[in-house]
């Protein structure tokens, strides 16, 4: 009874939907509820699968099963499972809210429970790629609708009336003809016994009846706990008998421990043990770097002990990595032809025949994530069983990697997901959880591995370092007739396989080959670049350097032609159309292109909206300037206008930011605004300060003093966010990442307007001074 009815008629998810045969007992156990009733009705609406997303192609796909996600207790408490990780986007609220909406549950009587890592049971749990709402809006609605239907049927049966005469309204089912009502709690037991309604019988709510979705009036579920110190992050897990550990890791990626002297460390009060931690050769995905662990009764003692260690390292081949020299290599590579990854027309010939060629070479250094909570994990390994508590974006992947690392079956590993004190992609890599697992196994006791901020800055999976070189050929009327973009950067693939020297398809698809401008002759190239440290995903990934380059080039073209930035931008975007880049197997954020094409009408729309609301073209005081940029990423469209003020000493302030976003159908506009506000801050951090540099293979920065991030006294005075209202059929896209890329180029275009200086090398640093 628990299987999909007529799966052949469904499109999209069907191949990957798993409806598990789980006994009611185990479901109750899984939800941690006793005395409750679980609604048993895995039902899907065929109509709701009228479009396709990439959800089904994610590992383990999607699970649409109310028995897995919803429980109703006799007192009426509805428990809804959150299976994605909360790192600040609000997803732990938004997805359960969708279920509650469809179910007609009263949000004040809903409890959200965090799912542990089990992708067979819950479907894919990788909380990255800005895709939680995109992939789960419809499945969560279906889960809620099936639960509601079961409750309605139970009530109709009890009253002996047709189900069509009853209706679930705000946590009770009502028979309006007779005025009878029954609460969800009273109906739960009967509802669980109901037969499965047919697919045709399942109706999703009319969006005009939504109480929560799209309204933005629901605060995040953890709001009270966060403001009172009760919210539990990875670092806040405490187990009986737990030891505290910090680890000294090889200062150079791929380096090895030669020798260590633990004596002084062992004399530090509170230090109990010093031990070696197994490391893996580089690259090895997310496996630990190895080193020496100091085990103590508290973290402070462990840190003090580690400071006292005497360590000798062999730096290995990456000991030569030097950021100054490497930048020159990237620049030289960008000036020579490279692997052609998109070609339309003949850019070479068109550039040669152009009336004017505008050239920009843009540099973006490595960036560290520095989420406020440094990596941390607790592990308790007993025999062939392991339990982990950690702030991980990928609980399923963590479970898999812990099992492999310890050589035990995945079924023996439990990964409990705490709140994440920020993630930004860093916590998609579970190396810190693997360290804790290895140490706990060896110690035979639960252990917490705490990374210090210095560890975090020095051993991150960094954002890549890149040179983006763009040549734009203009005809005598100033129209762009040729575009050559060479993108050179070490690839994330190098963290998975030695010798990966070219961008992976997903990196090419982030702002290089998906460039939306209407230009006859286009060449996108990707010259080789070798990696010498661990490269990883950083919020919005390759879109940061690509948008910086492409949108700065728009400003440079405006400058070269003496035209307005916004008009130049719209002219380049060209006619409203679906862009079809000549790219084989274009990577489209994992989404089918038919569902999520590059739509220049939407791109134009956010430019116009930002310009209208942000009063583009307004008079600004002397020393101020306006800049604009637009970028499509994570299948959302975002335009940002920055007003900058630069004083005579070159000191910069940002009086105002205006951002317009089209993210399709949305759940919580209030959280969209908060993501956009935060993206402006992170964008300004990147533009002003962001730089991790290497010398002799070692990261030169260590903490917030030399890897600075934006503080309140320099943050924009006001950030306004405008959301494009979705059409009835606009699919949900993404919000977590796409706010970041347009910020830096909008700022640099504004700085040019204010000062006449064109900044092509990030971070800004002191370039405006003197």
């Amino acid at each position, binding site marked *: 009874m628990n299987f999909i009815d007529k799966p052949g008629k469904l499109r999209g998810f069907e191949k990957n939907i798993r409806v598990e045969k789980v006994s009611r007992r185990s479901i109750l156990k899984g939800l941690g509820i006793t005395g409750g009733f679980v609604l048993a009705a895995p039902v899907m609406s065929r109509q709701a699968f009228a479009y396709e997303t990439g959800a089904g192609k994610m590992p383990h796909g999607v699970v649409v099963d109310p028995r897995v996600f919803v429980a109703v207790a006799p007192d009426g408490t509805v428990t809804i499972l959150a299976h994605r990780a909360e790192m600040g986007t609000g997803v732990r609220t938004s997805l359960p809210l969708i279920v509650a909406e469809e179910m007609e549950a009263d949000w004040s009587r809903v409890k959200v429970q965090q799912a542990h890592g089990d992708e067979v049971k819950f479907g894919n749990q990788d909380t990255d790629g800005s895709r939680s709402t995109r992939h789960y809006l419809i499945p969560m609605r279906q889960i809620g609708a099936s639960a509601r239907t079961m409750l309605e049927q139970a009530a109709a049966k009890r009253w002996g009336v047709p189900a069509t005469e009853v209706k679930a309204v705000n946590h009770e089912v009502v028979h309006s003809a007779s005025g009878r009502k029954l609460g969800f709690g009273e109906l739960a037991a009967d509802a669980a016994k109901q037969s499965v309604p047919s697919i045709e019988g399942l109706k999703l709510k009319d969006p005009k009846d939504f109480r929560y979705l799209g309204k933005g009036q629901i605060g995040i579920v953890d709001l009270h706990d966060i403001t009172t110190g009760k919210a539990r992050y990875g670092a806040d897990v405490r187990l009986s008998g737990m030891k505290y550990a910090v680890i000294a890791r090889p200062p150079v990626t791929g380096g090895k421990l030669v020798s260590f002297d633990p004596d002084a460390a062992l004399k530090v009060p509170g230090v109990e043990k010093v031990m070696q931690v197994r490391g893996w050769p580089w690259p090895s995905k997310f496996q630990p770097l190895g080193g020496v662990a100091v085990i103590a009764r508290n973290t*402070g*003692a462990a840190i003090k002990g580690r400071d006292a260690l005497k360590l000798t390292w062999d730096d290995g081949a990456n000991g030569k990595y030097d950021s100054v020299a490497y930048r020159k290599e990237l620049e030289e590579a960008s000036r020579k032809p490279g692997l052609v990854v998109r070609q339309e027309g003949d850019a070479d010939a068109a550039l040669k025949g152009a009336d004017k060629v505008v050239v920009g070479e843009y540099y973006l250094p490595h960036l560290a994530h520095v989420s406020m909570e440094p990596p941390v994990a607790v592990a308790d390994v007993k025999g062939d069983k392991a339990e982990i508590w950690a702030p991980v974006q990928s609980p399923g992947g963590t479970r898999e990697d812990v099992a492999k690392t310890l050589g035990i079956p995945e079924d023996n590993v439990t990964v409990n997901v705490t709140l994440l004190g920020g993630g930004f992609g860093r916590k998609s890599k579970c190396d810190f959880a693997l360290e804790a697992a290895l140490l706990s196994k060896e110690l035979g006791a639960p252990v917490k591995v705490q990374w210090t901020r210095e560890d975090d800055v020095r051993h991150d999976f960094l954002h890549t370092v890149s040179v983006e070189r763009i040549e734009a050929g203009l005809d005598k009327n100033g129209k762009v007739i040729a575009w050559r973009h060479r993108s050179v950067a070490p690839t994330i693939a190098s963290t998975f396989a030695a010798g990966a020297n070219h961008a992976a398809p997903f990196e090419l698809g982030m702002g290089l080959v998906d460039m939306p401008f209407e230009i006859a002759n286009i060449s996108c190239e990707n010259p080789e670049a070798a990696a010498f440290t661990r490269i990883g995903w950083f919020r919005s990934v390759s879109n940061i350097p690509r948008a910086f380059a492409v949108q700065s080039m728009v400003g440079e073209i405006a400058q070269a032609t003496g035209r307005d930035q916004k008009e130049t931008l719209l002219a380049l975007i060209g006619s409203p159309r679906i862009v079809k880049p000549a790219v084989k197997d274009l990577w489209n954020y994992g989404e089918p292109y038919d569902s999520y094409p590059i739509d220049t009408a939407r791109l134009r729309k956010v430019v116009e909206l930002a310009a209208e609301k942000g009063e583009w073209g307004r008079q600004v005081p002397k020393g101020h300037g306006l800049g604009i940029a637009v970028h499509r990423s994570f299948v959302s469209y975002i335009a940002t206008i920055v007003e900058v003020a630069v004083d005579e000493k070159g000191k910069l302030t940002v009086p105002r930011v205006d951002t317009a976003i089209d993210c399709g159908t949305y759940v919580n506009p209030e959280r969209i605004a908060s993501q956009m506000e935060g993206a*402006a801050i992170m964008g300004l951090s990147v533009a002003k300060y962001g730089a991790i540099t290497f010398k002799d293979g070692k990261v030169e920065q260590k903490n917030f003093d030399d890897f600075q991030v934006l503080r309140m006294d320099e943050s924009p005075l006001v950030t306004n966010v405008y959301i494009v209202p979705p059409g009835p059929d606009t699919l949900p896209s993404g919000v977590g990442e796409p706010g970041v890329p347009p910020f830096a180029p909008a700022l640099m275009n504004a700085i040019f307007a204010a000062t006449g200086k064109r900044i092509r090398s990030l971070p800004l640093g002191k370039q405006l001074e003197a």
Partner: protein
Amino acid sequence: MIKVKINGQEQSWDGDPDLPLLWFLRDEAGLTGTKFGCGQALCGACTVIVDKEAVRSCITSINDVAGREVTTIEGLHPNGDHPVQKAWRQVNVPQCGFCQAGQIMQAAALLMENPKPSHDQIREAMAGNICRCGCYQRIENAVHLASTGV
């Protein structure tokens, strides 16, 4: 034996007197609301109030607070209804929330010293507290709201 009053309760410590207060609070006293962010007084995540002053517990030793009164986020208000906490909820300040205990303690200390800070004074007083999610606009608005009555 070092004695210190934390959230109104007498606590004692006979270990390393140099132990940072942060780790005493988190690992020894089990008060995990105070967060570790940098260990160098650069980010403010560990901010607590000692007597009436905001201090960074990561560089303050347990010995430094001997005989003094420490207030952490857990002790700011019995029901979590300090005006700053209420304002934080009204403005929906947090994203990930990790830095917010430190932000709230810093804001509470600011309002004790200056009950009606200007926006510039708020931005300056809160500049030692980093929020990587970028909630600054809301933090500023929440402090302002707390100072004008929630």
